[in-house]
């Protein structure tokens, strides 16, 4: 029923399949990157496995290229939905020349896609949230037709900076959607050591904006929630906090080993709720995805991934001379 509504209101058949294709692509790319790491071919990976449905659902609720996005490191699927190519991702993973988000200066998965209004973010968590509110303020000052979505993990909402930023948006009714990807863990720290509220969305009440919790394993549910929040923002009714309940199906990053803090049975149980499978089943139930189409989606994704790896592996490392600039706007190699 709700899915039918989506079909009518926001998403046509094509975009539902696009959504699924992106989710699959993200998963394949992500899994393959873990393999590269195990093979010793790359130094670091931080994964979005288990978050994909929420991210793609969110991205597709935006007017891509018009609205602004201030993401965080787990947002591979969101970035793919916003136009990051697998090749670009792989350049970043391998620290190769021309990597578009930072010129190979940042660790992998520190996004920036200028052409899509995706703003550069850093590693210190929650630093991006005030930027999003600032962008919202600027949009309001300029009277532009845009909104901004920013994402973050539930753990990082413990940072004072996060509260300050959301507070700004609430006071000034800024066109911002604060999306929290709640996977219940911040590295090893569980939500109950992170906050005393049951849902991150409960924090909204203390800041004076609406807060909703949504099933982040369901791309359509997230799409709906973010669409509603975006509509509020566009209408001048201010920000919304949307908490998507997702699951971290991997260790925190390739540097992590989760065995000391995460019961194996818990991890096993997550697999029964794998968002990729859930979306596939849903589309099949809706009659939008045939077995054959599914095979094609998978094959297309796999091919794109392999092509990206080949491309990035043969790309050169940056010249050392590039490292010394631009410290200041306008700096050039020869300056």
């Amino acid at each position, binding site marked *: 029923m709700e899915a039918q509504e989506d079909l009518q209101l926001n998403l046509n058949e094509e975009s539902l399949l696009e959504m699924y294709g992106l989710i699959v692509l993200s998963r394949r790319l992500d899994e393959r990157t873990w393999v590269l790491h195990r093979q010793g071919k790359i130094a670091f990976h931080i994964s979005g496995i288990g978050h994909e449905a929420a991210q793609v659902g969110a991205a597709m609720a935006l007017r891509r290229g018009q609205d602004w996005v201030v993401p965080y490191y787990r947002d591979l699927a969101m970035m793919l939905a916003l136009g990051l190519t697998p090749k670009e991702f792989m350049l970043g993973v391998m620290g190769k020349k021309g990597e578009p988000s930072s010129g190979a200066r940042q660790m992998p998965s520190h996004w920036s896609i200028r052409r899509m209004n995706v703003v550069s973010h*850093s590693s210190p968590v929650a630093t991006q949230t*005030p930027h999003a*509110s*600032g962008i919202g303020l600027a949009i309001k000052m300029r009277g532009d037709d845009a909104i901004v979505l920013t994402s973050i993990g539930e753990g990082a909402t413990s940072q004072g*900076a996060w509260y*300050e930023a959301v*507070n700004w948006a609430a006071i000034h009714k800024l066109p911002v959607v604060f999306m929290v990807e709640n996977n219940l863990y911040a590295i090893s720290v569980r939500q109950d050591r992170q906050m005393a509220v049951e849902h991150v969305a409960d924090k909204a009440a203390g800041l004076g904006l609406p807060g909703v919790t949504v099933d982040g394993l369901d791309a359509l549910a997230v799409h709906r929630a973010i669409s509603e929040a975006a509509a509020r923002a566009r209408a001048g009714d201010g920000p919304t906090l949307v908490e998507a309940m997702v699951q971290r199906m991997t260790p925190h990053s390739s540097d992590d080993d989760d065995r000391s803090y995460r019961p194996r049975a818990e991890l096993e149980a997550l697999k029964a709720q794998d968002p990729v499978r859930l979306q596939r089943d849903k589309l099949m139930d809706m009659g939008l995805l045939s077995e054959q189409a599914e095979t094609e989606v998978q094959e297309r994704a796999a091919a794109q991934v392999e092509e990206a790896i080949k491309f990035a592996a043969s790309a050169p490392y940056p010249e050392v001379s590039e490292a010394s600039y631009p410290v200041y706007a306008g700096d050039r190699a020869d300056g």
Partner: protein
Amino acid sequence: MAEITLIEGLRQGMDEELERDERVFIVGEDVGQRGGVFRATEGLYEKYGEDRIIDSPLAEDSIVGIGIGTALYGMRPICEIQFADFIYPAFNQIVSEAARMCYRSAGEWTVPMVIRVPYGGGIGGGLYHSQSVEAFFAHVPGLKVVVPSTPYDAKGLIKSSVRDPGPVIFLEPKRGYRLIRGEVPEDEEVLVPIGPARISRTGTDLSVFAYGMMHHYCLEAAERVAQEGINAEVIDLRTLKPVDRQTILASVAKTGRALIVHEDNLTGGYGAEIAAILAEEAFGDLDAPVRRLAGPDVPAMPYSHPFESWFMPDADRIAKAILELAAF
């Protein structure tokens, strides 16, 4: 030409930039109807309205963080931190974000913003309303750090800072806000470039480097020692980062002696970098040790009046240091 105060120079500069470029706006605590606790933004709220002169919540990290967001979108924020002592909550946004944004995005994103910071002692502000913070920021690549000491430079440098394509920490010697007066032309645009130091008194016997209020005390001291036959060159650094090495080295090549004066704590203070540059690059020119005269290494300027005078270098102490150095 009109004689105006340092704070009036600042206000004029901001007013002109607000007028010139509608992307420019001001954000900070009490900058609106109150006109700032020092009245630097007085009248601007009435002229530009609450959408461009924005009273922030009491949260410095957000003042800077929100400012960065608007700058990424193309605005030109002037962020006011009420007192330098209250800039630390914003340290993360300034150092991790504003300073590193351009480099980390290989130049794709830049943060054109000014962070105005009234600093320094001598106003009865005690430990937490008297601090100097330049050493922290002058250490951070990606930031520029500017300190005007005259009304002319205040006006000319704030305007250049607003137009700079990156983040500028703009330190205002608050004790001089109304104390320091000077002529500023009314019929021409005043722009002072970020970068060059200014030789405010030429001399031959030794070089004195300072900025902000200390620069004025150094000038005073130089006049005093002139009566004893010592001819000191006084240099107002004005821009602490990037610092004007040429002017510094040329002066010491001429005089052979260097005294650096600041009111911030001595150890690891800004003077250390100047001394290090001289120790490295002026070795052959130096006829005497490089001297630093600075605030003592106590946490900050204490409140009680005798304590405050004890902390702050003044013309007397500077004159004494000049004489000692000249006699070396």
